[in-house]
């Protein structure tokens, strides 16, 4: 079995769920080595990565890896590709993960595949393109396969690895330190999970009617432990912040369950959620295109249906 590098996504020292998914996926293809970039590594992080199968953990703790945009992480990975000759490199298909993958591809003269929703032997990736209309198998033909895998593509399953730690001192070039992060501004999102990572997403659209009415969407989301999303119509109207927009020009999500409330389902929206495993739709218009891809739909007034659904969920807890 050969080594597969998995770039760890972490926030405030906590390993994100997508990394556990990537380790699980990497175990089916080789021996996963986790790569930790930046400050925040701890015994708890080590325990988590080991629990999910990391045989090795490369730890590069320099603050420079986080304090400059993308380039330092690509240099770190390129250096590890050079020294460890892995069979592949997996990163999360987040905006930043894809950018790291892109720079790494150039540095290592390797091909890159973005937004894989599956990966099998031979590093053949599944991709869902054109708003979910076409399924593609693709693979890298030059260099080390670099694959950005969409969150929620694999269910994380624990299976302990050796967890051998190796400290990495990477000498960053001046070129890697040209875009300096001088401030991190955290916008409150409450206790809800992150939109692209969440196992369940509840989104509201035009039918919600106002910003105040989004409280209904939030209550339903909270009853399910879900993230809140919004259609472009809702964000354009200023009812919900733009960073929660799901769709072609916003976030792409692929959760276990996607609940769409008052969203008709234009192709631009479907492009951001069509790979969701289960889709539930609530809309008063029986002709709404999103019903075509719904596993369960309710034609009705969301102001009646959603509170009832929220209440029923609370009762069943």
């Amino acid at each position, binding site marked *: 079995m050969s080594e597969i590098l998995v770039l760890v996504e972490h*926030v405030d020292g906590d390993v994100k769920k997508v990394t556990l998914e990537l380790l699980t996926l990497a175990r089916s293809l080789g021996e996963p080595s986790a790569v930790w970039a930046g400050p925040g590594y701890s015994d708890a992080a080590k325990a988590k990565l080991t629990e999910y199968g990391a045989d090795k953990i490369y730890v590069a703790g320099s603050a420079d890896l986080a304090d400059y945009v*993308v380039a330092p992480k690509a240099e770190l990975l390129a250096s590890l590709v050079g020294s460890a000759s892995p069979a592949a490199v997996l990163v999360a298909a*987040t*905006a930043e993960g*894809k*950018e790291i993958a*892109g*720079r790494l*591809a*150039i*540095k290592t003269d390797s*091909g*890159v595949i973005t937004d894989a929703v599956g990966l099998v032997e031979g590093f053949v990736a599944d991709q869902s*393109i054109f*708003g*979910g*209309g*076409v*399924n*593609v*198998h*693709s*693979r*890298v*033909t*030059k260099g080390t396969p670099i694959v950005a895998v969409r969150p929620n593509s694999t269910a994380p399953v624990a299976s302990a690895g050796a967890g051998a730690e190796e400290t990495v001192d990477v000498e960053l070039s001046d070129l890697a330190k*040209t*875009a*300096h*992060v001088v*401030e*991190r501004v955290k*916008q409150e999102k409450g206790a809800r999970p*992150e*939109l*692209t990572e969440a196992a369940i997403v509840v989104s509201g659209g035009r039918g919600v009617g106002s910003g105040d009415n989004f409280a209904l969407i939030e209550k339903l989301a909270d009853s399910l432990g879900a993230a809140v999303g919004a259609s472009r119509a809702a964000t354009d109207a200023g009812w919900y912040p*733009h*960073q929660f*927009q799901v769709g072609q*020009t916003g976030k792409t999500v692929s959760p276990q*369950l996607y609940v769409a409330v008052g969203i008709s389902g234009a*192709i*631009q929206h479907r492009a951001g959620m069509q790979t969701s495993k*289960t*889709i539930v739709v*609530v809309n008063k218009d*029986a002709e709404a295109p999103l019903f075509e891809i*719904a*596993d*369960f*739909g*309710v*034609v009705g007034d969301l102001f*009646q*249906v959603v509170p*009832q*659904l*929220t209440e*029923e969920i609370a009762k*069943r807890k």
Partner: protein
Amino acid sequence: MNIVVCVKQVPDTATERKLRSDDKTLDRDAVDGVINELDEYAVEEALRLKEAHGGEVTVLTMGPAKAADTIRKALAMGADKAVHLVDDALAGSDALSTSYALAQALGRVGFDVVVLGSESTDARTGVLAAMLAERLGVPQLSQARKVEVNGSAVTIERVTDYGYDRVEASLPAVVSVVEKINEPRYPSFKGIMAAKKKPVETLGAADLEADAGQLGLAGAWSEVVDFAVAPPRAAGTVVKDEGDGGAKAAEFLASKKFI
């Protein structure tokens, strides 16, 4: 300031998009081409930089002959001139090849700042700004929701999962923009007429002084093994709310073990 804005002609997302059976690349002939939506924000931001700091806006695109329509759109919005990379040898390029060709062209055109949309609606790789910064050896200021230039210093607000990062760098730099950074202007009639007279330079692969082995489908670093039209999702259950719609939805969620 020498501002270059990269734009891409993409299939209208409202039309059915297909891969061609022979070379497994996007069938660009079969669909109407439009300017990539996020690139309109890039053009707008480029124009605002020019309006604030002076200089010139050059549109750069790579694409087939019909991508000239997209160039005209950007010129009609107010860009000054354009460079069109068009060559059969470039067809089928993946992101690595595309970034290589564009970087070679940017080396020839020269720039203080390159502006582009953060991703295209067709390939949606979202890697091009990062790749261009890597190839050109300049700062990567991507996913910007705000851009400020002050002399040779440039600051952006880079969108992150938790909010945004304030990022500082010096020009020259590559900037990619997200939706909502601005409100793209509509071309005026005067702008549309003026666009017809603005210079468009056409470059072929040979003009790029590039390694031909890294361009086009043959030079790509990845391949489509096979593809299929996605089977329709199995028909679900749709019920009409008779006062119990929420309860029925809850039953469904329980049957799937979500609650």
